[in-house]
């Protein structure tokens, strides 16, 4: 058992460090997101609640990973919107993560209640 201990320790270290790097890659920085959201704000507002037109969605409080999915879909063309395609094509993965982090942390959209 004692001979196994060092290799167990090494294995655990590898697992934990790879998990934390995964978590880091998935997470955006909401402060950087606010900085990068200047263009977004002109239509969606600072918090994502202030839509310029009612046909634009609110973003505030939306799930972070859904926002990432939406922006990547606009970027790769699988979701089609002429305006959003133009903005999304200029965004890197980290930009998308940061923007999603900002808008998902604002107060706004609600879950549906199941009664």
């Amino acid at each position, binding site marked *: 058992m004692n001979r196994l201990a060092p290799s167990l320790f090494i294995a655990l270290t590898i697992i934990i460090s790879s998990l934390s790097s995964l978590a880091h890659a998935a997470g955006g920085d909401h402060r950087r997101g606010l900085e990068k959201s200047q263009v977004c704000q002109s239509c969606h507002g600072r918090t994502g609640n202030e839509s310029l037109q009612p046909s*634009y969605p609110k973003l505030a409080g939306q799930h972070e990973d859904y926002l990432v999915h939406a922006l990547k879909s606009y970027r790769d063309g699988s979701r089609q919107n002429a305006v959003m395609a133009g903005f999304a094509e200029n965004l890197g993965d980290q930009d998308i993560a940061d923007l999603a982090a900002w808008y998902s942390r604002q107060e706004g*959209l609600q879950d*549906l209640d199941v009664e």
Partner: protein
Amino acid sequence: MRHTWIVAVMIALTPLASSAQGDPERGKVIAYTCTGCHGIPFYKNVYPTYSVPKLGGQNQEYLVSALKAYREGTRRHATMQAQAATLSDQDILDVSAYFVSIGENKS
């Protein structure tokens, strides 16, 4: 005579105006199916994996355009296209009015 015409046109248009807003009570009944995915906190879409979007308090016009895009197939998602295919224009107005009303109740 002219006034009679104006009144008649206004009366005729009244139901149009109210139906454009949608009926949240009727929408709540239609939305029962939606809650199977959208009503469960942190429920995940898979392949690809992401959280099913929150709808409560969303803008009605956006919801209407999203549902119609799914119905027409210009926005693609197998489950949402199948669901939207069953909805009439009035159903879409009503169910989106219900989603809007959730935001109003909580804020």
